[in-house]
């Protein structure tokens, strides 16, 4: 089937999310849809899947105009969505998951015909080269396989247009490569694929043609042959972008953070970090790579005083801080950029100034005889907002109304406002636009250059490789390898992320 979206416009209060966007994808073709957060990709896909209705513009399938009043109509028209967050029931097996909602039935009571269902799933997975065990429970499957189940679900519903929303976000590089193989296979058998991402290399690797969105409009169309990562980034951002972080060689000095055989439990009481041992030295960036959910969150929480350390010990500048509270650790010179800025990093409903002093409000410079010194707070915040280029109408603006990039700048400004000996940054650029990513990376490298030790935890391999002087990889709670930057190739790190220790 050929899908055409023509002149799609969607206005939300105060935001023109889609402004006369036209895209098209042919039978057997892979369209890479590239754009930053907020460029309008999600709105466009929600229109395509029947969740929103466009203010104007049309959707055509094989030349005939269609309108979708709800997602069911879009599915019936042959459009299948694979969302970034999987919609699977953990206790179901693969067969049940795939057929759920349109199960084959038998008998007068319409009972579930498991035999037929299983046969259909087996046939479908054979036909498209999507290898899954039809009897495996979803909860026992790795993420990459769960994604295949999602794709099977769409194919089972006879989707001829498959939309994949940020499909590689949760995958290791090897799993991503396998996904690309699947996509190529589907295209070959006639499916039209829309591949949504913000990762430049991926569209170049898998797409037949590329459409770039910027601020709700089509910023350009190109093909992988004609495009380079740099040209795509420029199209996406609207100006030239530095893709690599420029940095001098690090002058590595004494160890600041020494972690020795540290184990940490998760909320369920199971071991999340298993005898991790590493050190971070003054003037270097240690980047911890790993697929999400391999203990990185618990590792960072333990190092910042938010989670007890079960065994092992941690030294900060040769002093033990295993029992430290977040405040003691912060005043010892640790800056913490938390993984989930919405949950931990800021207080929505409070102003930028209040968020700026979130963990320093008790210091004598801001608090006198139990009262907040509003003048001093305003002066310090004004300066920080200027220094860190936070775009805001005023420091008394609710932080919730800022863009993600500006929110993160406030957090980074706050954390770097103290005397910093160690930076612990978890997913410091998740969900940010390219401009903000560039900026925050530069600030982190600055800290390293001025002699701080930096520990970065990231699931984005590009970020790990761009920033790390050394790269450690976490897999199932263990540090499975630590490589120098020169040895840390995409392949080696990728294999380690998948738990394969060569």
């Amino acid at each position, binding site marked *: 089937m050929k899908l055409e979206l023509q002149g799609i416009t969607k206005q939300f209060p105060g935001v023109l999310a889609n402004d006369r966007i036209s895209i098209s994808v042919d039978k057997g073709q892979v369209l890479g849809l590239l754009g930053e957060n907020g460029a309008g990709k999600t709105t466009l896909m929600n229109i395509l899947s029947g969740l929103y209705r466009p203010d104007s513009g049309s959707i055509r399938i094989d030349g005939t105009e269609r309108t979708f009043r709800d997602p069911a109509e879009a599915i019936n028209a042959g459009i299948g969505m694979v969302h970034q967050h999987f919609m699977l029931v953990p206790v179901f097996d693969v067969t049940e998951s795939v057929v759920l909602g349109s199960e084959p039935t038998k008998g007068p009571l319409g009972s579930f015909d498991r035999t037929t269902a299983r046969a259909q799933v087996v046939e479908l997975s054979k036909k498209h080269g999507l290898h899954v065990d039809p009897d495996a429970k979803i909860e026992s499957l790795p993420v990459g396989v769960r994604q295949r189940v999602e794709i099977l679900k769409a194919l089972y519903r006879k989707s001829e247009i498959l939309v994949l929303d940020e499909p590689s976000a949760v995958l290791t590089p090897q799993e991503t490569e396998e996904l690309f193989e699947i996509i190529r296979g589907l295209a070959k058998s006639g499916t039209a694929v829309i591949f949504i991402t913000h990762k430049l290399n991926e569209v170049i690797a898998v797409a037949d043609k590329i459409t770039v969105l910027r601020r709700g409009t089509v910023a350009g169309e190109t093909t992988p042959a004609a495009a380079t990562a740099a040209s795509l980034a420029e199209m996406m951002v609207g100006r030239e972008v530095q893709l690599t972080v420029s940095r001098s060689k690090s002058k590595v000095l004494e160890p600041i953070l020494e972690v020795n055989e540290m184990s940490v439990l998760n909320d369920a009481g199971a071991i999340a970090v298993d005898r991790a041992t590493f050190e971070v030295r003054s003037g270097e960036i240690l980047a911890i790579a790993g697929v999400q959910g391999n203990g990185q969150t618990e590792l960072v929480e333990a190092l910042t005083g938010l989670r007890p350390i079960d065994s092992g010990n941690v030294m900060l500048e040769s002093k033990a801080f295993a029992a430290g509270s977040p405040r003691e650790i912060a005043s010892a010179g640790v800056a913490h950029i938390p993984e989930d800025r919405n949950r931990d990093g800021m207080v929505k409903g409070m102003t930028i100034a209040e968020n700026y002093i*979130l963990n320093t409000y008790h210091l004598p410079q801001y608090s006198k005889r139990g009262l907040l010194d509003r003048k001093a707070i305003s002066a310090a915040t004004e300066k920080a907002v200027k220094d860190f280029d936070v775009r805001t109408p005023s420091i008394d603006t609710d932080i919730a109304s800022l863009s993600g990039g500006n929110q993160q700048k406030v957090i980074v400004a706050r954390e770097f406002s103290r005397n910093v000996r160690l930076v612990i940054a978890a997913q410091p650029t998740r969900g940010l636009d390219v401009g903000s990513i560039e900026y925050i990376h530069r600030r982190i490298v600055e800290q390293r250059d001025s002699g701080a030790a930096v520990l970065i935890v990231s699931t984005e391999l590009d970020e790990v490789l761009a920033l790390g002087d050394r790269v450690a990889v976490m897999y199932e709670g263990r540090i499975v390898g630590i490589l120098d930057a020169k040895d840390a190739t995409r392949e080696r790190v990728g294999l380690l992320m998948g738990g394969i220790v060569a």
Partner: protein
Amino acid sequence: MNRIGAFAGKLRVPALSIFVALFIGALFIIFTDVEVLGRLLSDPIGALSLGVGRAATAYSALLRGALGDPETIGKALASNGDVQLWARALRPIVESVVASVPLIFVGLGVSVAFRTGIFNIGGAGQYTMGAVGGTLAALIFGGGVTPAPIAIILVMIFGLIGGALWAFIPGFLKARVGASEVITTIMLNFIAAQFVFFLVSNFEFIQKPPRIQPVSKELSQFVDLPGILPIESLRLDIGIIVALLTAVAVSWFLFRSTRGFELRTAGLNIAAAKYAGMGAASSIITAMLISGAISGLGGALVAVGTVKQLSPGIAGSVGFTAIAIALVGGTRPSGVVATALVFGLLQHGGSLMQVTTSIPIEMLLFIQALVIAFIAAPELTLGIIKNPFVRRSKSVTK
């Protein structure tokens, strides 16, 4: 200009809620009237006009009861300072303010807890225990044992302590073992009322002679709170002044003090409070202590000053009305005071409505409940009346 706009924006939902609730209340008055219902089929127009007339009579009685009768006020103005006439003219509005005093205190008290993210619905119990403290202080130190000003101060201090102690229990339990404050505070409300019953029926020192009824001695014999109006028969005492000062103090505490900053952070985002190194347990206990102390202060002042007697039912429906007030007022001290005054008007006006129109005072509880429901669902409220000034725009800064 922006500031005024923002202020008007904050007032929009509460004001609309009260308005819509009154409107629906009027519909209820019309369609629960037996006479209206009886004629509705045979003579719909006549029935409806009768109903509308009844509703108008009811609400005008409500207004006169709340604010005063224009006729009486006119007479008083013309009388050239006749104290009797002035007292009659001003009594409704003064009594409305008197009715709002306990609401201000408990409203402020629960607001401090709400701001910290603790659903303290034990305002009634804390108020009652404050009344116990104030009563005991009056009985022990009043009646000339200590000079009057000192006795009054002791009444207030005992009230603060009574309320704070009662709130400490659920605060401590929540901080230490994670007990839900919703459950513990409700239970403590009952225990407080029963505790008063125990006190006023078992101790000669407390119970009113001849010890038949479960009420305390007349407290005005022991401590008399000074009135603040030149007309003696109008019973507005220093309680309202203390209430307003408390509102200022709460505002100062929440928005200017370091501790207040911690409490607000905990209330808005407990994870971020932990991340910032703020002690969650101490925030909970501090908030509950302050919350209970304020309600307790109100209990003491009202028991000694206005009611002049301690009885098991002293809190009445104050606890739950105060929760509504805290929510309607956006847990902002100024909002709480304003809302408490409006609810005081409704309450006192409602009693006159009941007398003159036989519409039960429960009608007002119904209206109050509607106000809460509308506040809890702002989108619904805004949807009912599409305000042309409402621009629901998201501010996005890039």
